[in-house]
């Protein structure tokens, strides 16, 4: 499918006869279980400005070419973590990459390893199952203080990196172990556990480490660094996983 830009030349008036807008080809993996059992590839010719993000280009298709294109997006500024997708083979947030940096043809697929529901929308439930399983909340065994639970700057810094997670699933769905073995907790769940395991105010570290010591826990990690590469927040995911491994190791030996 090829579509030519039919947008009026903006507010600059009819006199504006600047250079033709640059265009890019979006090759999107479409899937609609109501009409076809198999996914198909469709290409769209999209005009773009140098400042346009990939999400702008996709939304242009949705608004001007095919309204049935389904994707998740919300804040569009890299905070909510809704629009993770596989862009040119690597997991990215569509709102965090510029079209001009991605080449003349951009391949867009849903994140891999989770059941596709429609187009770029996947069923996130298995991902959330793993997240819930690591008890990602504060566990304490002392009396509740009347003020907030204080912590030194050093203690806070210990787990600072893993507090940045926005749960976009880019890391977990970039992990080859997770692709092949849906039972593996995946990088995100380990990051979520790391955030509490190394929190000086938390008392549930043993329980969480015990959970991650399971057959499908941290020992499945093959340190391929796909997760670290995929994380839009720049979290050192593989490092966090290694730190959990080390905590388990030195607790046993």
């Amino acid at each position, binding site marked *: 499918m090829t579509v030519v830009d039919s947008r009026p030349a903006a507010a600059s008036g009819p006199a504006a006869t600047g250079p033709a807008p640059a265009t890019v080809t979006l090759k999107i993996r479409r899937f609609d279980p109501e009409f076809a059992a198999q996914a198909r590839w469709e290409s769209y010719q999209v005009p773009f400005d140098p400042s346009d993000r990939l999400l702008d280009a996709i939304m242009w298709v949705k608004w001007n070419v095919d309204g049935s294109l389904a994707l998740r997006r919300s804040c569009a500024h890299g905070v909510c973590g809704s629009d993770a997708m596989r862009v040119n083979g690597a997991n990215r947030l569509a709102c965090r990459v510029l079209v001009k940096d991605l080449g003349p043809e951009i391949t867009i697929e849903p994140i891999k390893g989770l059941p596709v529901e429609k187009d770029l929308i996947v069923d996130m439930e298995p991902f959330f199952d793993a997240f819930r399983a690591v008890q990602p909340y504060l566990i304490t065994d002392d009396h509740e203080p009347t003020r907030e639970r204080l912590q030194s700057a050093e203690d806070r810094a210990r787990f600072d990196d893993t507090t940045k997670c926005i749960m976009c699933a880019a890391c977990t769905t970039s992990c080859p172990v997770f692709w092949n073995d849906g*039972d593996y907790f995946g990088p995100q769940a380990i990051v979520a556990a790391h955030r509490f395991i190394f929190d000086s105010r938390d008392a549930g570290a043993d329980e969480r480490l015990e959970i991650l010591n399971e057959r499908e826990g941290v020992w499945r990690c093959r340190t391929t660094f796909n997760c670290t590469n995929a994380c839009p927040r720049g979290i050192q995911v593989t490092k966090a996983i290694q730190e959990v491994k080390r905590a388990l190791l030195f607790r046993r*030996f």
Partner: protein
Amino acid sequence: MATTAAPADRGAPELAAPRSPRRRTKPGTAKARSNFELHAWVFMRISGLLLFFLVLGHLVIMNVLDGGVQRVNFGFVAGRWASPFWRTWDLVMLLLAELHGTNGLRTVINDYAERAQTRFWLKMLLYTSAFLVVTLGTLVIFTFDPDL
């Protein structure tokens, strides 16, 4: 009595295709907790490190020093195995290499064999072959008779 329809579920579990992963259990619900994977992981690191020296040493002795592989015959082996040091070296190398490889293949099978039956039989095959190699090798090292 209440014959209400199933709650409006997400519908996703029915959508097997495309590219949904296999999932056997929910994470965090494993029944028996053990340190087996932890110990397997540590074993791989330590055995890998030891094998690096054992295997390189073995290669150099057998293939490079004093004319290399040309001089290896029954007498050469008998001469080396007269010393408990070389017997121990070979025994340790045999055990570590076989177990290291077996555990590595076990992981590969866990990763890539999707059907439970396939996984089971592949692992049985693997463990049987490992048992045969270890038994046979150990037997030879301990019962080797230079006067044969």
